[in-house]
């Protein structure tokens, strides 16, 4: 795990009983394999629970002229039918803007549409009934009259002066624009030896969590207390949202996220149907549950990507990349999402362009436009696959133009080890990256020369294979610069409370959350190591605003780096408390004692002096035996926020090996390799699986996934049969290795790993396809690379 060059600094946790760096299985996995998970729809619902269903707009853009709900109200089992105007009486609408995205605009968004629908699938009327089936029966009795308006679907057309306006009050369909300039890109292009360019298109995705969005709200009017079970990454953010928008004291709002069946960034946005469900519970004073079905997930979950990028790269005669000029146009649907906005993906895409390389001249122009489509916002690897896809495609084109091997061309242009700390032309600060070690390791891992030989030999047999690379950088550990500075009530800190319990066990309540990445396992590893106990004796509690401190939770690869550091700091504090107490009992200086495997031991000899169990027994049940004036401090609580840099950066490289059937256009994935550097690896087993899972989501982007809309704004493939996601039989084995360059801004040194796989996989696959197609003079610059598009590129299909 050690990098070849930068030694990993010693850590206070490098002790004989440390769990850091060990592949410990997840403590919560056992109940999940036995079907004993508690996803929101599994939570035993309070008596009298009602089930919500929503009537959604069939049009992408229309004015609502009339709503008749009389028959639905009279239908069997129906307790409540609500329109947007009625929800507005108990729930404040929202606007998805933040001040640090200067000029970002959006319109007022209501939980349920009021007078005007702006995308197909927007919820309009809600019904709460005794069963979901009864609620759906009632929906069929609602009559809504719409006056259709011209839909705006194409992002280029949305900006034409004659375009219809989605939100007339904004005066245009432009949500946000940003220009990032550094050096003199135009001059660099005038001086260039070679210029390569491309028009790139990235399809619109749906995140497709296997568990759909789910919420169970129970409002108790006697105390005005609201309990919400929700499938969310961010229970604290949702607690704040419900309190403010429903006019409740925050202390009266309790949000619980038990098991979450996948999230990938999709489950941290505010959705009108979920808020309306909670509002219906407040109106009724009864429990109301809403579980999105798959057909309503497709048009109502946030979408992602959807970029059109025109980009150029300038290269000097010696093969040095000197400049990039990039224009990114991205369509974000009908609103900027609340509360995190829809500007983040474009902002990151435009700033990550060219990020791994030495070029100093850059000009990036971003336009974010509204469309009559589902709202687009943050999904795994926000902006990264766009920047990586564009940059790495141009790098391959440039290498070919200069006549260099693509790996050698990258080596010449990647940031070298002597430049750190380094500020990129787009303003990103890289503490220390390990591009060259990663490239070297990948080359060995994949046996690159052998693959090139195989490629040449296969070609003689008419078998068309290709090899593609993608170097990537990844933003992790976001501090307050991410949202807080823009006015969002989204915290960048985390909190942890560690307690020695009467049994001698450790209870760890921490504000980062678990959606399967193994948060609870690594927090247990860190707590056990910091305090000095066996991991079996640590119980981690997450996902409950009443049980843990308020914190940022899990997103943007912040769990290990920020949450983990919080647990480490807290663990050291509890350990100090316990050693102080043991010192008093044993009449020894605490510095001469240590805690190891749950035992208080002599530092010098390692000899056991007293068990933690015994210490706990005395502290809880026989404090009368302690000296006068001694109070045992059995709990430690700390908060932590990274302050040293705005966010951390990881890096790595991926390679894809593909075979293209040039008759059918089908791509077979033969192999995939990743070498990445997430800093200190806390649990290699979990890190590798984060990478692999991320890679496959990136492969989905490269080959399969795309929300197809008609010109009228109708989602054409909104079923799981029509929207293709990767299946086991078509995925390759994925080989993962690491370089470790811990961040020095924390003691733990962990940087996070959630986005890395997704950041680079699609670019590697597309480059591999283009490598395969190169002898045919064919090139694709659109994802997904469907068989049809490949055949078109080969000239085998017209158009």
């Amino acid at each position, binding site marked *: 795990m050690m990098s070849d060059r930068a030694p990993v600094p010693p850590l206070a946790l490098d002790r004989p009983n440390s769990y850091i760096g060990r592949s410990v*299985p*997840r403590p919560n*996995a*056992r109940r*999940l*394999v*036995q*079907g*004993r*998970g508690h*996803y929101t*729809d*599994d939570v035993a619902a309070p008596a009298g629970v009602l089930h919500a269903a929503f009537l959604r707009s069939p049009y992408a853009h229309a004015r609502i002229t009339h709503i008749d709900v009389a028959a639905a109200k009279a239908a069997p089992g129906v307790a409540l039918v609500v329109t947007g105007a009625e929800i507005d009486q108990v729930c404040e609408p929202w606007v998805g803007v933040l001040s640090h995205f200067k000029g970002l605009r959006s319109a007022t968004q209501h939980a349920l549409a009021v007078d005007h629908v702006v995308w197909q699938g927007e919820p309009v009327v809600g019904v709460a009934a005794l069963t979901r*089936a009864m609620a759906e029966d009632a929906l069929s009795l609602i009559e809504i009259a719409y006056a259709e308006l011209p839909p705006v679907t194409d992002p280029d057309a949305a900006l034409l002066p004659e375009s219809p306006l989605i939100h007339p009050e904004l005066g245009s369909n432009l949500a946000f624009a940003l220009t990032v300039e550094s050096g003199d890109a135009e001059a660099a292009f005038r001086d260039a030896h070679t210029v390569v360019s491309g028009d790139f298109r990235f399809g619109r995705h749906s*995140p*497709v*969590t*296997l*568990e*759909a969005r789910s919420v169970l709200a129970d409002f108790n009017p006697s105390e005005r207390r609201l309990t919400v079970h929700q499938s969310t990454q961010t229970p604290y953010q949702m607690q704040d949202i419900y309190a403010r928008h429903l006019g409740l004291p925050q202390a009266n709002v309790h949000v619980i996220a038990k*098991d*979450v*069946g*996948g*999230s*990938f960034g999709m489950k941290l946005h505010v959705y009108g149907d979920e808020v309306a469900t909670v509002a219906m519970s407040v109106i009724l004073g009864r429990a109301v549950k809403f*579980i999105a*079905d*798959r*057909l309503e997930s497709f048009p109502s979950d946030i979408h992602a990507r959807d970029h059109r990028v025109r980009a150029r790269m300038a290269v000097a005669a010696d093969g040095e990349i000197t400049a990039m000029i990039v224009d990114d146009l991205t369509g974000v649907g009908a609103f900027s999402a609340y509360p995190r906005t829809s500007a983040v993906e474009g902002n990151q895409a435009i700033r990550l362009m060219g990020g791994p390389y030495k070029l100093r001249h850059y000009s990036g122009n971003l336009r974010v436009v509204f469309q009559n489509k589902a709202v687009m916002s943050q999904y795994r690897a926000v902006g990264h696959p766009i920047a990586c896809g564009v940059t790495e495609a141009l790098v391959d084109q440039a290498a070919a133009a200069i006549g260099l091997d693509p790996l050698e061309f990258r080596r010449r242009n990647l940031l070298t080890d002597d430049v750190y700390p380094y500020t990129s032309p787009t303003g990103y600060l890289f503490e220390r990256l390990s591009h060259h070690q990663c490239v070297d390791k990948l080359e060995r891992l994949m046996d690159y020369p052998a693959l090139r030989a195989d490629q040449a030999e296969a070609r003689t047999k008419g078998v068309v294979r290709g090899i593609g690379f993608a170097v990537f950088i990844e933003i992790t550990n976001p501090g307050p610069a991410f949202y807080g500075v823009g006015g969002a009530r989204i915290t960048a800190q985390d909190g942890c409370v560690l307690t020695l319990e009467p049994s001698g066990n450790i209870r760890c309540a921490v504000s980062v959350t678990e*959606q*399967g*990445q*193994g948060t609870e396992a690594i927090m247990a590893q860190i707590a056990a190591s910091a305090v000095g106990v066996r991991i079996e004796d640590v119980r981690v509690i997450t996902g409950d605003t009443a049980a843990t401190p308020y914190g940022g939770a899990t997103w943007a690869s912040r769990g290990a780096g920020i949450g983990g550091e919080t647990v480490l700091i807290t663990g050291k504090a509890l350990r100090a408390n316990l050693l102080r107490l043991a010192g008093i009992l044993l009449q020894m200086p605490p510095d001469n004692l240590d805690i190891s495997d749950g035992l208080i031991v002599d530092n010098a000899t390692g000899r056991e002096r007293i068990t933690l169990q015994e210490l706990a027994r005395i502290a809880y049940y026989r404090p009368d035996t302690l000296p006068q004036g001694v109070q045992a401090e059995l709990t430690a609580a700390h908060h932590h926020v990274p302050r040293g840099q705005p966010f951390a950066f990881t890096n790595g490289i991926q390679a894809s090996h593909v075979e293209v059937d040039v008759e059918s256009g089908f791509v077979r994935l033969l192999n995939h390799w990743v070498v990445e550097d997430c800093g200190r690896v806390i649990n290699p*087993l*979990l890190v590798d*699986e984060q990478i*692999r*899972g*991320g*890679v*496959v*989501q990136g492969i989905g982007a490269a080959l399969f996934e795309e929300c197809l809309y008609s010109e009228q704004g109708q989602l054409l493939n909104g*079923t*799981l*049969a029509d929207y293709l*996601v*990767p*299946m*086991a*039989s*078509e*995925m390759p*084995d*994925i080989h993962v290795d690491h370089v470790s360059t811990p961040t020095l801004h924390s003691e733990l040194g962990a940087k996070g790993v959630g986005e890395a*796989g997704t950041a680079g996989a699609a670019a590697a696959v597309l480059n591999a396809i283009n490598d395969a197609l190169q002898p045919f003079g064919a090139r694709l610059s659109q994802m997904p690379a469907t068989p049809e598009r490949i055949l078109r590129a080969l000239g085998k299909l017209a158009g």
Partner: protein
Amino acid sequence: MTTMATTISVNGTSVTRQVEPRTNLVDFLRGELGLTGTHVGCEHGVCGACTVLMDGATVRGCLILAVQASGRDVLTIEGLSEPGHRITKALQEAFVLRNALQCGFCTPGILVTATELLTQDPAPSRELIREAISGHYCRCTGYHAIVDAVQQAADVLAATQGPA
């Protein structure tokens, strides 16, 4: 809506309920019997999260009506987790050790299918495992670890059973 008396053997116990004909098997298992280990992922027969065994063969709980299961033997992940199901037990152990699950939502369905696979073929190749579980969508793992875990379970079963 009218209901029909329906008797199904679920995890070895005969249960009789009045059910609406439109109720599908997975909603019946979850709603009527509280067997929430079987999950609802798409309700149109694609994702595989609702897979259970009926008379020993995998079926999609969302594509079968409860009334169609009348008189049949249904085994869910809860039943397969009881003692005596050595193949499922080996799979569960391998899934935990290999971290072949993340969010775990797809996992019970995949374990049901993998149980059926190893019952029919005690030593499947990686390709065959990949094909066998292709009726299941997993968004978290990328499948590689699942294939590893099924292989590991097959190896463990072979080692503990001796030659067939």
